[in-house]
């Protein structure tokens, strides 16, 4: 009986299969299709998605990156502060600040940008974003014409650098921040949370002609999918493609690869409360086990530079660093000099073999690999490293005391000033002082930095502090990963910025 059913059903089923096949063969509307009649448009594919475009709360700075909002101060690739919506600023004591707001700038809504508008915008960010409220320490803002006066509740010489933060972007507070009205080269056309931001040219942009007519800032967190989008022509600029595809992309005549050293540093944190790690020779020995060049070549496929300290070597607050070669023999000697026994391929302390617990996390795929390389080199010397991966390293390192070392990563100087790193990591109350560093001399130097307004003097003090960190090896800085981008050959005016705060700019164009 079932066979006779089969005969009856044969044709409808075949029809269904044909419909299914045909449904997959319909031509889609392609975003990459261009002709002379169509506007100049570009699609940028970024690697982190955003569910809000409110410049004051969005942790991914989409409005800034998409060229919608701008800040009072910007940072250039030499990590120097530059005027943006503020033409100048001054303070004698680091607490009372006067900013001159650029005249003849209007919001996308058409409202003029004056000191009052900037005050309203800054007051909104202080109200909505606790992180920025803590960073700015604003006590009082006074606005008059184009002059903005700000008093902070404590001397804050790095105040202008905090205003580089994209969350301080100046927007028209009379307009809903869900559809922000900024001052940038692009006006928001549509925001689809988690998918993309569509922008169009700002015809009255204060800084000159904007070359693109339209642009889309899309999100995709899968590196392979981003690569395929570039190859399919669905995207014109793609952030962080899979590094293993680099050689393949470099041979493609239609693509251009750009790679610049980033401001991030992958590092090894030592728990200073640990009996052995509190000793400088032990830290120096472990530092000698880090084969930085191998990490750059093998783990990062060349898309990184060896870190000699927390900041890039060309940074204004970097001292001349000492080289830190990979040298297992040196490590062995250092352990021996520090009173440890190194024999039969095992390092022991009073007969007890040395074992350390090393924390790492997965959200940056290379970190566990760096941990494994260190583990292998340590094993060669005779030290056991037990690697533990955690979901949230910040939480784990802050809440637990049972770890000895951690492979960690963050941007050490995001806004053209060294004070963030020094205050966060090296003061006893710093929120990133996971290693429990308590160095009175260093702390004094940091407090001196916190009172110094002159930028040259600040850089000099920062260099002294970094020298001290380097000398005492309070952390081992391993590599600076590159920011790398691939774009179609017809894209011009693209700049891969170190800070990654600025992406869609007025100079970006497609030919």
């Amino acid at each position, binding site marked *: 009986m079932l066979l006779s059913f089969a005969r009856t059903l044969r044709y409808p089923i075949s029809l269904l299969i044909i419909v299914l096949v045909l449904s997959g063969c319909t031509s889609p509307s392609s975003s990459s299709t261009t002709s002379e009649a169509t506007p100049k448009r570009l699609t940028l594919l970024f690697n982190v998605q955003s569910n809000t475009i409110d410049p004051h709360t969005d942790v991914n700075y989409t409005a800034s990156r998409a060229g919608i909002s701008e800040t009072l101060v910007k940072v250039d690739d030499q990590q120097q502060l530059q005027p943006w919506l503020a033409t100048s600023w001054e303070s004698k004591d680091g607490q009372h600040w006067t900013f001159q707001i650029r005249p003849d700038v209007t919001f996308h809504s058409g409202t003029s940008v004056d000191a009052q508008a900037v005050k309203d915008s800054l007051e909104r960010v202080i109200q909505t974003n606790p992180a920025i409220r803590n960073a700015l320490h604003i006590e009082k803002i006074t606005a008059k014409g184009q002059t903005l006066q700000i008093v902070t509740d404590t001397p804050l010489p790095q105040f202008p650098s905090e205003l580089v933060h994209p969350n301080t972007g100046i927007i028209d507070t009379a307009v809903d921040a869900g559809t922000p009205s900024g001052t940038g080269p692009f006006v928001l056309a549509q925001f689809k949370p988690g998918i993309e931001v569509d922008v169009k040219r700002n015809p009255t942009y204060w800084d000159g002609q904007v070359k693109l007519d339209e642009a889309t800032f899309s999100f995709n967190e*899968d590196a392979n999918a981003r690569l395929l989008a570039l190859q399919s022509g669905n995207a014109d600029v793609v952030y962080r493609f899979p590094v293993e595809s680099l050689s393949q992309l470099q041979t493609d005549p239609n693509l251009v690869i750009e790679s610049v050293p980033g401001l991030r540093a992958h590092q090894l944190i030592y728990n200073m409360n640990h009996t052995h790690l509190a000793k400088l020779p032990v830290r120096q020995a472990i530092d000698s086990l880090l084969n930085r060049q191998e990490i750059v070549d093998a783990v990062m496929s060349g898309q990184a530079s060896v870190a000699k300290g927390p900041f890039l070597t060309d940074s204004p607050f970097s001292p001349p660093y000492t080289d830190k070669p990979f040298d297992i023999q040196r490590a062995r000697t250092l352990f021996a000099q520090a009173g440890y026994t190194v024999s039969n391929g095992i390092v022991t302390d009073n007969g007890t073999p040395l074992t350390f617990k090393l924390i790492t996390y997965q959200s940056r795929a290379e970190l566990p690999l760096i941990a494994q390389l260190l583990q292998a080199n340590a094993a060669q010397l005779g030290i056991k490293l037990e690697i533990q991966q955690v979901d949230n390293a910040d939480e784990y390192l802050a809440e637990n005391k049972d770890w000895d070392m951690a492979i960690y990563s963050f941007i050490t100087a995001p806004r053209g000033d060294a004070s963030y790193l020094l205050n966060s990591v090296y003061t006893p109350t710093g929120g990133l002082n996971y290693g429990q560093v308590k160095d009175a001399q260093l702390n004094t130097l940091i407090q001196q930095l916190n009172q110094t307004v002159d930028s040259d003097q600040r850089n000099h003090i920062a260099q002294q502090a970094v020298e001290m960190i380097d000398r005492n090896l309070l952390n081992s800085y391993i590599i600076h990963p590159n920011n790398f981008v691939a774009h179609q050959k017809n894209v011009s005016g693209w700049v891969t910025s170190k800070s990654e705060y600025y992406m869609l700019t007025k100079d970006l164009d497609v030919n």
Partner: protein
Amino acid sequence: MRMLIQKITGLLLFLFILSFISFCLLKLVPGDPVRSMLRVDDVAVTNEQIQQMRAQLGLDQSVFVQYGYWLQNLFSLDLGHSYMTARPVFSEFIEKIPYTLMLTGTSLLVMMIISLPLGILSALYRGRWTDHISRIFALIGSSIPSFWLGLLLIDLFAVKLRILPSMGEGSWQHLILPSITLGIAMSAVYVRLVRASILESSHQEFIRSARARGIGKKRIFTFHLMRHSLIPLLTVFSESIGSLLGGTVMIEVLFAYPGLGKWIVDAITARDYPIIQGYMLFMSIFIVLLNMAVEWSYRYINPAIAIGQRKKGATS
């Protein structure tokens, strides 16, 4: 009416217990959102500021007090604001749910288009080449990781043929690749289920009785055999809907599709408690309603179930 009131009371009680348990479990997990909120990896923050913020959010209070506040706000229809985006939880949920429902619907459609014909054919041609093909399909379909299948489909349809978009949302074409990816993964299981269900039903007494009564083959197949086979399938089907509503993270990431899966995973990672609690609440309501609908559909598909329930009600 009485039954309806009973159902609603049961639902409310269930939601209360579930929300309380999920709230407690969330709080038992170490960590909180304060470090993420204060952006320790981006701006200078002191430990004192972290403690202050913790107190400000009430995170230093007992779990019962915190749950009490949440419940109190819920009674005034306030699910709170996301710690990360500062936007109302309800707005974010309402933004995401249509995309998820759309993808769920189209994936199930693809699954049915593949699994029903293949499952029926393999039952009808048991032991023959059609059956072998369906078995191989089921084996391959359940072995291929869905993200890899998705990448293959993107490579074929978006990169090589350039006939479908590789990612995003906005047109029906954007739904094709994610739906096929999910649909194929699910249909691998359903093909075998359909086959087994039809074969099992075809041996039932009522099929032989129908034939003896001279009912036509088409009618027997459609109204007796298929109808009876649907009941076990429906149960699994409702479970699939439940898992699709929150469990398509990989596909959402791959195709940059703005569904609930990625949203909730991000919220869990960032310990965004208001989002997680809101999601739990909405999903439990949805799944309870779905189960009730499936239960009701049993009675429609097989009236014997309804009659049995009525008799049971009369005797008790």
